[in-house]
């Protein structure tokens, strides 16, 4: 074979920074493996425990179904009420945060900050905060869902507002319409379908969060589940998990079919 130096290299040497990142990641990974004490022995024992858990969980015990249904209803209440207020609050917040609708840079930065705080703090931590402030029960759950929804919906609404075509807004500005007129006349109608889709995603997300919120005492079916687990009533826990599964899947199916209809 001839020695052709014009051939492109098979491998381009990474930059110094890439090396640092790569080595750092590898070190962190190895340290993680050691620290969490992963061994084949533990995994094998875990597997046999899982078999025992499943053995005790089957058949599921539906004898407490009325209580489970009540708790599930409470979870859905938390999700629906929380997501409705969350979406409602998201609209003005998103308008203040979007480049083309914000009154000025200061307000925009502030609104974006509020939205990113709502998003960065996980829903369970919001729930913990509200359990401390308003006490145990569904109200804490609702407030947590509102914050979680704002972090999600307001961000996507405002991104949608920024994507609307410039022309129609400009046409309304040219007729002498003020900022609010342009928002209601062009920007909101143009964004409506996408906002509905985002809101439906929020509902799906809220149902899933609301299930776990009970684990920290913020009301709903999570309370039932954590109680059953702590009392080693795995058959009751299995019944609760099945109910959650059915409801969440049903909600997702419903929201998907509505979304398909709109878009």
């Amino acid at each position: 074979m001839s020695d052709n130096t014009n051939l492109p290299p098979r491998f381009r040497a990474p930059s110094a920074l890439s090396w640092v990142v790569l080595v750092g990641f590898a070190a962190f990974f190895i340290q993680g493996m050691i620290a969490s004490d992963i061994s084949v022995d533990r995994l094998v024992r875990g597997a046999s425990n899982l078999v025992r858990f499943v053995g005790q969980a089957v058949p599921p015990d539906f004898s407490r179904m009325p209580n489970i249904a009540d708790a599930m209803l409470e979870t859905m209440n938390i999700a629906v009420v929380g997501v409705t207020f969350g979406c409602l609050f998201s609209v003005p917040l998103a308008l203040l945060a979007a480049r083309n609708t914000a009154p000025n840079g200061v307000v925009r930065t502030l609104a974006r900050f509020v939205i990113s705080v709502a998003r960065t703090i996980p829903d369970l931590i919001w729930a913990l905060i509200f359990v401390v402030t308003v006490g145990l029960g569904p109200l804490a759950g609702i407030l947590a869902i509102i914050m979680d929804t704002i972090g999600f919906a307001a961000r996507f609404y405002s991104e949608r507002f920024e994507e609307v075509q410039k022309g129609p807004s400009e046409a309304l500005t040219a007729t002498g319409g003020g900022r609010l007129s342009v928002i209601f006349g062009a920007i909101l109608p143009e964004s409506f379908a996408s906002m509905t889709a985002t809101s439906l995603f929020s509902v799906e997300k809220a149902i899933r969060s609301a299930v776990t919120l009970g684990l920290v005492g913020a009301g709903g079916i999570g309370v039932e589940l954590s109680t059953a687990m702590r009392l080693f009533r795995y058959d009751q826990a299995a019944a609760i998990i099945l109910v959650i599964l059915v409801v969440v899947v049903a909600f997702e199916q419903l929201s998907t079919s509505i979304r398909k209809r709109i878009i």
Partner: protein
Amino acid sequence: MTPAIAAKDLCVSYGKLDVLRGVSFDMAEGQGVVLLGANGCGKSTLMRSLNGLEKLTSGTIHIHDEQLSTARGRQLRQIRRGMGYVFQQFNLVPQLNAFQNVLLGAMGRHSMGLLSCLSLTAPAQEREGALHCLERVGMADRALHRPSELSGGQQQRVAIARMLMQAPRVVVADEPIASLDPKAGREVLDLLWRIVREEGLTMLCTLHHLELAQEYADRILGMKAGQIEIDAAIADTQTDQLNALYTGMTRVDAKPTEVAA
């Protein structure tokens, strides 16, 4: 009589690029003027600045004696209300039907503002007005169609109805037929000029077709490189002179041979 539009020494620069370099002209009330010029000569910038959509670097614009160039907020909106704007790309709200789009033309006109032009809250009289505007452009039977269900020519008709709904005194039409095929373009231009003449409006319209300009306009303004090169009553303009506007340019979109042939 004070002119409907009085533009004096308009300059617009983007950084080092001078788009308008001292444009001055007056338009008497009821006059129909066609503005000609090659792509990139500053026509659109001029049109946009007449509505305050483009900020002037220097110069003054008066619309019916009201100073547009320094107007802000409420005062600017007030002047814009009296000025209809027809866009090359129609700029209808895609999610609203023709009727709702026309209603939006009333946007600035009412003390109720916003509520007077949303189809849910508009008073019956405004709704009748909007339908009447659609009738005048021959689109009443398409009132419930969305822009995507209409042809380009039909969309521009709806945009003209929206302009009518605004009840303006001055109309600025920025290449109203440049996106349309020749036949539809001809029909739409015919309609636009007929309505402008019937209502006694003042119109400044940019076109790329010399023969159409000569057919409709009272007067022709010709722009080249950000300045007015030609300003003449229609009887005094010569085709050669107009063709010269399009020579020495880098792009060939304006086809100077079209008229010479």
